[in-house]
């Protein structure tokens, strides 16, 4: 008597099908229209690098909203298509890059947080002749030995970070250094860079260990590091590895005997550490608390509106990457990758995008952004909430970068 046309099973199946249908879609699509200029972001949204990947996405979205509010790219609205590259699977990152280029016909490719994935994606973008911006993959090769005419990088080369911090460490803390280094492309080049920079200043490497990416337990290597009796333990780990390593080092009380330091530090891991473990000397690639530098406050407010927190360097990387696409197209008055790449040679970012005390420009012949490096110390609490870093010195990117020849980049342009 109570005939039912829809069974419970059918509802469940329908619900599941609807849920499944969500998956093949790109994660975020904004301002979709037929004649949009498409920017494809292929960056981690899951795994170890989910946090930096998401923050770059937020910065990029802000840039696109601003670009569209100002009339878009060459009069067309800009659209962001974001894909999850995963944190460490080069196969997936490359497949997503091909999907963005061949399937979505993007005009620009952005990514990746992971150095190795950046290099893999750069091969694809070069083969396809697409303008590619690497927001935050640091290994030197991206704009060094493996540089390509179409690949530009916003974050620093690892050597720049090493050069920026080395002098402070040798001068203030001693000459014997022990390294805890993540065992992949980024870690290797960063350690090489640090060893080179410190050796030039008279310091020595008394020991070091490579730790697998995603390590949870650092106690054994910390015991070894302590036994080597160095003046400084240099932590080159990143993200969650940085949190795990520093948290355990501080629980061991190592900071009372040995100075803890490193090259690259980010706001994300500092926020993830308990206050007592926010210590050490580091380099930040961008910092939000820059009194007196114009336009920074407006950027801080804009990001705060979206996330409720102050911007991190990753937000800025994403922001600069998004804006670079629009600025390159405007300067070249074209969406042809070669024209835009040529327009970006020695191109200076306007101050409202550069957001630092020094000029920021893409160095010609290498496509590497020369911005500002912020050297200083992590702090438990600063003047404001989230002010977890005390900047003691700023270094102009060009002063820390060496020459284009040093980088090993030999750029060849398409005929």
């Amino acid at each position, binding site marked *: 008597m109570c005939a039912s046309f829809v069974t419970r099973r059918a509802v469940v199946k329908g619900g599941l099908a609807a849920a499944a249908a969500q998956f093949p879609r790109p994660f975020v699509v904004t301002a979709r229209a037929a004649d949009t200029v498409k920017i494809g972001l292929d960056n981690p949204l899951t795994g*170890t690098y989910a946090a930096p990947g998401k923050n770059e996405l937020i910065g990029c979205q802000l840039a696109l909203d601003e670009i569209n509010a100002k009339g878009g790219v060459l009069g067309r609205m800009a659209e962001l298509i974001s894909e999850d590259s995963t944190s460490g699977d080069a196969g997936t990152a490359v497949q997503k890059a091909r999907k963005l280029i061949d399937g979505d016909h993007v005009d620009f490719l952005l990514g990746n947080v992971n150095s190795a994935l950046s290099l893999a994606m750069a091969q694809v973008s070069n083969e396809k002749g697409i303008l590619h911006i690497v927001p935050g993959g640091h290994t030197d090769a991206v704009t060094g030995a493996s540089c390509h005419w179409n690949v530009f990088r916003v974050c620093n080369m690892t050597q720049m970070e090493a050069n920026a911090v080395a002098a402070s460490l040798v001068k203030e803390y001693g000459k014997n250094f022990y390294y805890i280094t993540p065992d992949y492309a980024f870690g290797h080049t960063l350690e090489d860079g640090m060893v080179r920079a410190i050796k030039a200043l008279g310091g020595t490497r008394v020991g070091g*260990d490579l730790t697998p990416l995603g390590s949870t337990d650092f106690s*054994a290597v910390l015991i070894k590091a*302590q036994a080597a009796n160095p003046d400084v333990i240099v932590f080159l780990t990143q993200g969650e590895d940085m949190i795990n390593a520093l*948290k355990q080092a501080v629980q061991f009380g190592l900071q009372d005997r040995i100075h803890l330091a490193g090259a690259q530090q980010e706001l994300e891991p500092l926020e993830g550490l308990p206050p007592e473990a926010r210590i050490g000397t580091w380099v930040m690639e961008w910092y939000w608390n820059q009194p007196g530098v114009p336009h920074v406050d407006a950027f801080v407010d804009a990001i705060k509106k979206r996330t409720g927190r102050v911007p991190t360097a990753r937000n800025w990387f994403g922001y600069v990457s998004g804006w670079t696409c629009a600025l390159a197209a405007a300067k070249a008055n074209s969406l042809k990758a070669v024209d835009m790449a040529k327009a970006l040679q020695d191109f200076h970012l306007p101050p409202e995008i550069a957001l630092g005390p020094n000029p920021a420009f893409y160095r010609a012949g290498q496509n590497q952004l020369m911005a500002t490096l912020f050297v200083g110390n992590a702090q438990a609490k600063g003047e404001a909430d989230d002010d977890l870093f005390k900047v003691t010195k700023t270094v102009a990117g060009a002063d820390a970068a060496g020459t284009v020849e040093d980088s090993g980049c030999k750029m060849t342009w398409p005929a």
Partner: protein
Amino acid sequence: MTQLLLFNVFNGLIVGAFYALMALGLSLILNLSGIINFAHGGFLALGAYLAYTLIPWIGFWGALIVAPLLTAALGLVVERVLIRPLYGGDPLYSLLLTFGLAYIFEDLSRLVWGAQGLPFAVPRWLTTPLSSQFFFLTGYRLFMIAIVAVAVGGLFAILGYTRLGMRIRAGTRDLDTVATLGVNTRLLRSLNFGLGIYIAGLAGVLAAGLLGLSPTIGSSLIMPSFVAIIVGGLGSLLGTLLGGLLIGVASGLTAVFLPAAQEAIIYVMMGLVLLARPRGLLGEEGRLH
């Protein structure tokens, strides 16, 4: 060098005890119900995040008690709704289900608590070294060992001396016979699952004090637990305990000579055990065949 080796053996025992705690929960569920619970790491992360959320209200000690209980309650719901229909079926189904659940848990914690690491603080007096010579013996690590000892002791006491424990042990040997004797095996499996998940939640709270609290905390810790079970032997909780301690020490000693291989060594050990003694050190022959 001798001192370095000794330090690392002790340190390895501490780390291994923690692996063993996680593995015991897994082992408990696997032994009675034949469920290979890949979502164990997800429950562990949930325990840690619940503790983080509760600490401002009830403090670290309150959270240490309440968070694992809440995790176990959720475990009971998951068991009732999702896992129960798969009992008696091909273990592959439950493996696939829990594998999917692990991803769902990870992404849910990312959605609720954010992708970024959170500052999980434990009482300051626990996180200082007890002596400058044995600096790796911090209050927190000894506290962890104590908790592991109490949890393991409690678990073995429950299994050895309570009616529930006897039924779990009997069910582990032959569930059908236990059922024909009038024991409610559904309830037995539920309670056993809840107990296993309680241990996962407890391990989660302890892990968050030592590591960064992020959505991947569970997935990064789950593999050593599986290895501990395989090395120790399926079907034997004592074997699981031994397996955990062994891989902890092996990993610690490897770190002295070749730190890059400190994770690989536990898989090498697993391979060697599987080659030389496929049932594991204390395992029973023919489990899960």
